[in-house]
């Protein structure tokens, strides 16, 4: 336990960029630093091939130290290689707290690393707290967000945690920030040639990023069919917003965009306006919208649980409301422009 100091943020690189989720964690790490009496240093870890190009970004978003680990073997993501590197870095630098995004990658290499180091990891935390005695508390959801629990890791180090995108705020970018850079290099063994990557498929599709939208129109099972779903998408577009969905809409195949699923097993959002239509209000979903500015809910079932968490309640058929909103939006645009 002794000798562990500092906060390490694993900065994930995807499609040639450091993901937003990691930048948000850097922001949170800086806030944790302020709360902890010994003011631990905030480090960013960049793993991969040619990662020097990302230094400006993580430095600008507040990393005080940047550790890089470059190796040809890291060109393609492999959980065995990546978790081995993360483990080596932690063993060398001994941070007391290690944060990763609750991404598919973070949720894979995080627990592997925790096992290799024989320590604990709290998965998809929604909040961090620091108690008066400097205890680091990780708040995690259970039962689809119905229950939140405080997790502590009192006797093992580091304390590892993953966080979903959109829950924490990144710092203001400052181009004058200067971080200490350390390039670390070592052998990587992993499972060697037992694993062979054959093909990587990336679907390039342009979607409005939920976390950057001021307005999100969310649709659920109550939408009823794919035709009405198309209308919902058109409405979101007309309002200049993005479309979010719930698990049933994906299961029904009205939408294929799993990354737009809002909730504890999807993404958490905080738009100025969340307009949901045909969403029943399962806790899995409502936990992902609780930070929205204003929540307007449309559901024909007066007793739908969603209304308990709404600012405005409309008991009506979703399709009728979509049609009416389209008409109003269309008129406004035509006559006021």
């Amino acid at each position, binding site marked *: 336990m002794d000798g562990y100091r500092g906060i390490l943020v694993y900065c994930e690189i995807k499609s040639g960029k450091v993901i937003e989720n990691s930048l948000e964690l850097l922001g949170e790490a800086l806030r944790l630093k302020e709360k902890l009496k010994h003011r631990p240093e905030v480090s960013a870890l960049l793993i991969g091939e040619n990662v020097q190009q990302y230094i400006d970004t993580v430095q600008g978003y507040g990393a005080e130290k940047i550790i890089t680990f470059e190796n040809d073997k890291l060109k393609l993501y492999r959980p065995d290689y990546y978790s081995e590197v993360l483990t080596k870095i932690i063993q060398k630098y001994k941070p007391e707290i290690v944060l990763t995004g609750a991404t598919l990658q973070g949720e894979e290499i*995080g627990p592997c690393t925790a096992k290799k180091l024989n320590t*604990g990891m709290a998965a998809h935390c929604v909040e961090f707290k620091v108690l008066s005695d400097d205890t680091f508390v990780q708040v995690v959801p259970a*039962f689809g967000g119905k229950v939140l*629990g405080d997790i502590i890791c009192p006797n093992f180090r580091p304390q590892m945690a993953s966080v979903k995108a959109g829950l924490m705020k990144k710092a203001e970018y400052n181009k004058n920030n200067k971080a200490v850079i350390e390039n670390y290099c070592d052998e990587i063994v992993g*499972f060697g040639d037992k694993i062979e990557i054959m093909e990587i498929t990336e679907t390039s*599709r342009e979607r409005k990023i939920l976390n950057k939208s*001021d307005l999100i129109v969310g649709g659920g099972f109550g939408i009823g069919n794919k035709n009405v779903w198309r209308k919902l998408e058109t409405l979101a577009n007309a309002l200049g917003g993005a479309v979010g969905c719930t698990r049933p809409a994906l299961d029904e195949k009205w939408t294929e965009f799993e990354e737009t699923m809002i909730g504890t097993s999807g993404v958490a959002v905080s738009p100025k306006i969340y307009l949901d239509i045909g969403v029943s209000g399962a806790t899995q979903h409502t936990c992902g919208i609780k930070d929205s500015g204003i929540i307007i809910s449309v559901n024909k079932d007066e007793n739908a649980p969603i209304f308990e968490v709404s600012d405005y309640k409309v008991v009506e058929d979703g399709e009728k409301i979509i049609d009416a909103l389209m008409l109003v939006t269309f008129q406004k645009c035509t006559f006021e422009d």
Partner: protein
Amino acid sequence: MRVSYSKIGGLRMTLNIAVCIKPVPDSRYYNKIIIDPKTKCVNRDEIETVINAMDKNAVEAAIKLKEKNGGKITIFSMAPDNAVKNLRKVLAMGADEAYLCSDKALGGSDTLVTSYVLAKAIQKTGNYDVIILGNQSEDGGTAQVPSQLGEWLNIPHFVNVKSLELEVNKIVAETKTENGSIKFKVRLPALFGVIKDINEPRIPNVMGVLKAKNKPLTIFRATDLDLDEGKIGLKGSPTQVGEIFSPDMKRKSQKIEGAIDEIAEKIIEVIKRAGIGL
């Protein structure tokens, strides 16, 4: 672990498959979950347990491999004694044998300890070529046990797996990423955490249910498993649960009423007042 197929002419092999399952409270009744104000514990006694959804996909994936290649499916679970009924259901689906690790001493175990206990049970009972788990549970949903179990067993492991095909001594699998997929080949033994996309789990038929009654089901107590006492239960778990609470998300739920077009007008007003330009 070592590879243990017996080649029976040509490419046909007998696979030894292990599947881990977890009984979880039925998610349809999550609204019945209450936190006892005195003990600060989650009261879920009234909720029946079911097999975690993705674990059924894991069982189905194992059955598909067995149907195609021959082999044996052994189920493992760490849960209280009443999980026997969940295990019988999995045996009814088509698994061959089951082991339940159940002991008061295992209460309070986190994912590191759970995966340790499962690893010990797996190592005690045989050499498995393929180990399959549901990627994540519905209740805790940490998605950590598959990776950590793979680490304890020191074999290649993958999560978010959406397809599995057996080749000689190898599996070709595909994992899902945020914006696509990765296809890879891995030498056995290996471990896979599977997601819903992989298959549609079968529902046991009457014949299966009848057969399941006579399939071997063994309960392991902590002392049966050669466990390091300091590594199990609450004491051995690095993470510990402190206070638990229900988030309060209530809002005022002000009703917007009127004719459809009036409602639409009012909604647009609310949107504009929030500072969104239309």
